[in-house]
């Protein structure tokens, strides 16, 4: 039972990897960006757990800027992904312009909130 489960998991990982390797490079770059942002957020949360959350607005803006960046990048990825039929008529340039605008708003807010 355990064996078959681990074999299944191995199969799964293999097929996942093979499926993922077919992803276009620009999407992979976005994925890397998302992973990096989430990782930064996790570091900050760990730091908060160790040191304390005293300037709470700083902590909040730090973590939320990371999460926000990740979320926006995921949105961009959804929009520029060729396999998403819903966004066929949305040009990648337009999607990127929206992404930049949204990031601009996000980080203006964060600079304001940082205190």
């Amino acid at each position, binding site marked *: 039972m355990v064996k078959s489960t681990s074999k299944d*998991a191995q199969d799964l990982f293999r097929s996942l990897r093979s499926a993922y390797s077919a992803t276009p490079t620009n999407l992979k770059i976005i994925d890397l960006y998302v992973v990096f942002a989430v990782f930064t957020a996790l570091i900050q949360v760990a730091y908060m757990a160790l040191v304390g959350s005293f300037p709470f607005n700083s902590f909040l803006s730090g973590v939320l800027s990371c999460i*926000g960046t990740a979320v926006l990048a995921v949105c961009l990825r959804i929009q520029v992904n060729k396999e*998403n039929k819903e966004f066929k008529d949305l040009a990648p340039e337009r999607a990127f312009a929206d*992404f930049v605008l949204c990031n601009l*708003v996000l980080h203006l807010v964060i600079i304001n909130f940082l205190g």
Partner: protein
Amino acid sequence: MAALESPQPGTPTAMRNAFGNVLSVLILVLIGVLAFSIRLFSVIKYESVIHEFDPYFNYRVTQFLSKNGIYEFWNWFDDRTWYPLGRVIGGTVYPGLTLTAGTIWWVLNSLNIPLSVETVCVFTAPVFSAFASWATYLLTKEVKGSGAGLAAAALLAMVPSYISRSVAGSYDNEAVAIFALIFTFYLYIKTLNTGSLFYATLNALAYFYMVCSWGGYTFIINLIPMHVLLCIVTGRYSPRLYIAYAPLVVLGTLLAALVPVVGFNAVLTSEHFASFLVFIIIHVVALVYYIKGILSPKMFKVAVTLVVSIGMVVCFIVVAILVALVASSPTGGWSGRSLSLLDPTYASKYIPIIASVSEHQPPTWPSYFMDINVLAFLVPAGIIACFSPLSDASSFVVLYIVMSVYFSGVMVRLMLVLAPAACIMSGIALSQAFDVFTGSIKYQLGASSNSTDDAEDNTSTNNAPKDDASAGKTDKGEEIVKERSSKKGKKKEREPADKPSVKSKIKKKALVLPLEASIVALLLLIMLGAFYVIHCVWAAAEAYSAPSIVLTSQSRDGLHVFDDFRESYAWLSHNTDVDDKVASWWDYGYQTTAMANRTVIVDNNTWNNTHIATVGTAMSSPEKAAWEIFNSLDVKYVLVVFGGLIGYPSDDINKFLWMVRIGGGVFPHIKEADYLRDGQYRIDSEATPTMLNCLMYKLSYYRFVETDGKGYDRVRRTEIGKKNFKLTHFEEVFTSHHWMVRIYKLKPPRNRIRGRTKKLKSKTSSGLSSKSVKKNPWI
């Protein structure tokens, strides 16, 4: 619009399309004018003044803002209220309304249009109600097309519930907040329909404006997650949903935290936790859908067990953390007002100060009819229309109406949130009904002129199975209402009439109703629409336009105007020292600071229950104890509102039991039972001695018997219990023309000359204790 769906880009269609667009814009402008002008009754019938209580505070804040600028405003510490505590205005007020009006005033002034701040404040609400009806058009258009949008906008422009909060002069948060609410919902739906990050950004900004404007923003931040959850559960997840929701949560939370009055509450109180929970869930779901997309179905089955179980574990951990957080914070992290939404009996059990406000009470059934009128009957039809076909947008509207119906049942104030939902639903219902009726009329007419026998054959065969539907539709039609003037009605009829010409005949036949039934139904719609319009105009003109600082009454010998409030506030500002403290029940705090510019002890902000309870205790205590309390608060004048002479029902005697309850909640020696005779609240000769000796009774009825010799109270419709008495610690300094406002001054403490004090004391006690005053030692 029907013409938009046309497959052939023929010139007539394009012409009709352009014509329809121009007509839509024209109608929208007219709706805006209608929304603005129907709210001007208060200015025309009374005058251009700020209304009621809270608007006076907002007006005062706006004055401060326009005089001192935005930075001074954020740091403003107001020492004229809540004496001796004061209040940090910049950090405790929802700044949206004041900033809006301040900006409008600033823009107008820099354009060399010299309007006073007061004028801008008076007309902010009507202007924003025009905006709100345009936002309703946009929202409904996203849901069901522009026909429904126009109908909904016209309905919203004059729905009485909204008028009650946005007549000219009603300068309150709700005036701009309803616009912000509808506009936020519109942008959410727009993002959901287009999947554009641009609209998601705008959505977050609109949400920010809503957070700035009104505490009701928690409705948005709970409703949208619920809709997202609904979509996920019913298997309607799409990447557009992710784009509409995830950026909104992150940006919206940050933006909400920027507003000082919300601050860290945006992440710390449990009103907001639902959004974070759904935020996590949508990520799990998005990941599942993504993996499903890239894997083969067989491998996906394997993956499901792994990924979903891991996801569930993560969710459970987060839920556990949230529950722990909620449990560890006081009152479970929920603020009192929100708790009373979930448990309607919460406020009356624990917080008399919330329960004492009449707009926090549950509404009665007639108030539904008064406030949304025939829309109440149209809403079910609109819900049915939303289910055919059910889209993401229409499911959102359905959820919106269901939630707002629940909340309006809890708190009468939230009827205001229900009104836009009811208008949208009714707009959809009306538009669909018109589509069906005019479509079938057009078809019948066309069919009879073209090929008579063929068409009749068709209709007769069609009518047999359609009988049920037509009967149902006609029934609905009888309740359904046409809301606009005949001019707009014509346009409305033309619009769906386009439809049959461009749609396939087969589809159209399914909608065919008998000609006579359609015509009758249309007439009924128009007739009942006229009824709605008449009701709305009546509500705007008669019921909701009174500014409540100026009262009028119509009697046989003409119109009487009672301007006592302003008379007495003017008296205060002219005859008292600028630093004198005035005590009154909290209802009149805002007006006293704004109109008389005097320091008050408590006001309508009600943030400090103990302080209010102190004033309540003073009002319910005998004269001497009350004098001591007031003297310890540095009070110079006491203001009471008394309606017994002219029959003004919302005076202090009628509010008195709340003073007792609130006072007794903090100071247990005040017991409600002492003021009631056999559970009845009365002020006639049957009243309890505690009642007849309390300060409120004395201040209200002092010298009252001199007016008519009997002391007949026209509000309570009885003769007062104790008629001739003297005040020992207070002296009357001002009574307004109709006795509505009475101002008393605290007598200074007596000189401590032994013999004199003794003499006075004995006199005082005899004066107080003698119930039937035959021999008054003071005369």
